[in-house]
């Protein structure tokens, strides 16, 4: 067992874990933050995307120990003072989900995209979502939601 400390959604946390503990297990099982999902568990589907020091990463393919000392943001950390993040609000408004399983990863991935590219084209959004799979929507409303969020965030 080893002690791992990091900041998750602005809160400093420290736990004893096994070396093999994945970041997604740390978040879900040790911290109870079950908004980050495990879909494929093979770094393909993107349901587990979180931000590690501001960059999106697949939490199923990262050891908790590798995130030592980092700032991690999960879907639970996006809303501020009870108000949805513009990307969350846009997913709701544009119905960018059906079953909702992939949604936390989609939203976290989209937030990273908009940080790097505040006004992405439809093609750029679709290319960015390479690592996020959705089996319900056909992506159309997800892309629409992300572009709407970009407009909303530009004010």
């Amino acid at each position, binding site marked *: 067992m080893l002690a791992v400390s990091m900041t998750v959604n602005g809160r400093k946390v420290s736990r004893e874990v096994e*070396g*093999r503990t994945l970041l997604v297990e740390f978040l879900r099982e040790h911290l109870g933050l079950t908004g980050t999902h495990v879909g494929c568990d093979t770094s393909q589907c993107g349901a587990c995307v979180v931000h590690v020091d501001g*960059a*999106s*990463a697949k939490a199923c*393919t*990262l*050891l908790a120990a590798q995130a030592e000392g980092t700032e991690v943001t999960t879907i639970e950390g996006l809303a501020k003072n009870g108000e949805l993040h513009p990307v969350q609000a846009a997913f709701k408004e544009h119905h960018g989900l059906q079953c909702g399983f992939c949604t936390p990863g989609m939203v976290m991935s989209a937030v990273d995209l908009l940080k790097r590219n505040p006004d992405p084209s439809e093609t750029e959004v679709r290319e960015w979502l390479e690592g996020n799979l959705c089996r319900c929507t056909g992506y159309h409303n997800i892309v629409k939601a992300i572009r709407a969020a970009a407009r909303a965030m530009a004010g």
Partner: protein
Amino acid sequence: MYDFAYHRPGSLEEAERLLSGASDGALVAGGMTLIPALKQRLASPSDVIDLGGIAGLSGISEAGSTIVVGALTPHAAVASDAVVTARFPALAALAAEIGDPQVRNRGTLGGSIANNDPAADYPAAVLGLGATVRTNRREIAADDFFTGMFETALEDGEIVTAVSFPVPEKAGYAKFPNPASRYAVVGVLVSRGPAGTRVAVTGAGPCVFRSAEMEQALAGDFTAAALDAVTVAAEGLNSDIHASADYRAHLVGVMAKRAVAACG
């Protein structure tokens, strides 16, 4: 995944010591290959030594006619670096096509070449540009570095620290990506510069290799048309459910021409 002892050394010396002291030690950089391999129990090391805590292994610097990329530099950083995109767009484009954005945020140059997956992109860049691999012990020429499928010239305890790329006059990379995973079914990097005229092929064979015939053809006439006369033999190439050896041989020719065209 079986459990292991996790270590996070603060220096290369400490990493080397931990590696030599472990009964079966594995280094991890980004972990984009090792962690899936651990989950599938394809690898079950006694000790995992994380290079992420060692300062100075990440970053890109320009030194005259070379660009030095630290071993722990993630693909996303190479793809978006101002110096690389300006002086060496082929390398930026190659890095931008690896995996998906989250893989590019974590995966590293050093990890990719030390692993030497037959379908990885970076080995084509290192070999196709005549780069030099720097380790904690020495410098290794690209031509000597990749020795076989998942095999390199790295010795026990040797750790890649950086790769030094000579800036080419021209370079282009084209790959036929696997539709699901984006690895190179075939990828070809062509370049002309201080290291001569080079053509490196990844994905097609058990290990990245140079095509002497294509290099000869391009040395005289660096155009896609110059490659028309070159036929690629299927013998020894990979064959799997995604592509037969014959199809890969065909793709080598097509990707080489596209890579030359991409040089602009």
